[in-house]
C-alpha cells in the first residue's frame, strides 16, 4: 500500500552505490518492479510487501533487516 511517509526506512540508495553504483533501473529489472517503485521506496513513500523486501535483499546479497528498518 502506498503511503506518504511510511514507518519503514531503508538503505537501498546506499546499497546501490556499494554494489558498483547500480542504477535504479538495474535494481528494478533485477526485482521485477518499475524504476518509479524504486524511486518511491528510496524516498520512503512506499512500504514494500514482504516478498519484494526479500527480493531486494537477495539482489544485494544481504538479509532483509540489513536493508529495511522500523523507524517508529
Amino acid at each position, binding site marked *: *500500500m*502506498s503511503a*506518504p511517509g511510511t514507518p519503514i526506512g531503508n538503505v537501498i540508495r546506499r546499497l546501490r552505490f556499494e554494489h558498483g553504483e547500480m542504477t535504479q533501473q538495474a535494481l*528494478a*529489472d533485477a526485482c*521485477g*518492479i*518499475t*524504476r*518509479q*517503485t524504486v*524511486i*518511491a521506496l528510496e*524516498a520512503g*513513500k*512506499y512500504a*514494500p*510487501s514482504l*516478498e*519484494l523486501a526479500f527480493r531486494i535483499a537477495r539482489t544485494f546479497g544481504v538479509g532483509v533487516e540489513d536493508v529495511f528498518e522500523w523507524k517508529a
Partner: protein
Amino acid sequence: MSRSLRYAVLIPLSILAFYVLFVLPDVDLGWPGGLALIGGAWLVWYLLWATWTASGTSLGEAVAAVSPGEQRAWIGLLFTLAILLYFGLRASQMVGTDGGRAPEATAIGRHIGMMVVAWLVVMQVLARRWRDKVQADERDRAIEARAAGWARGSLVVLVVALAVLFAFTPPDRLAWARPMTLSNMLMAGLIGSCLLEYLVTGLAYWRDRR
C-alpha cells in the same frame, strides 16, 4: 520538419479537430467517413503529444520519469474526460420527442465507440513502446485497487441516490425520467466513475513522485 513548424501545423489542426468533433452539429458521414474523421482527429492529437514528449525537451524527460501505470492513468483520464464532455454536450440530442431514442443517438454512440477504439489503439502503441520493461508491479496493483474502490463507491452512491429518488418522489414529479434520459444518466454515471478511477490513480502516482 522542425519542431516549431510542427507546432504551427498541429496546434491549429488539433483545435479544428476538436471543433469539428465536439462543437459542430453531427453530419452523418457513414462508417468510413466517421472513422476517418475520428481517426484523423486522434492522429493529430497523438502527433502533437508525441512532439511535446519527444526526447530532448524538459517535458519529454518528465514523461520518461513517469511510470507506465501513471501514463496509462493520465491518458485514460484525458480520454474519459473527452468522452464525458462529448456525451454531456450531446446527451440531450439523443432523447427523442417521445422520450425514446432519437435518430441522432446512433451517430453519437458511434462517435463514442470510435473514441474508445482510438483510446485502445493509443494504449497498444504505448504497450509496445514499454514491451521490454516491467509495466506494472505490486505498487501499481495497490494503487489500481484503491482507485477501483473509489470508483465502486461512487457507483454505489449513484445507485442509492437513484433508488431513493425513484422510491420517494411522487410519480407526477418524475415526468422528466423518460427511458432515454434514464439511460443517459446511467451511462454518464458509469463514465464518471471511470473518470474518478483514473483521477485517483493519477493523483496517487503523482503524490508518490512529489
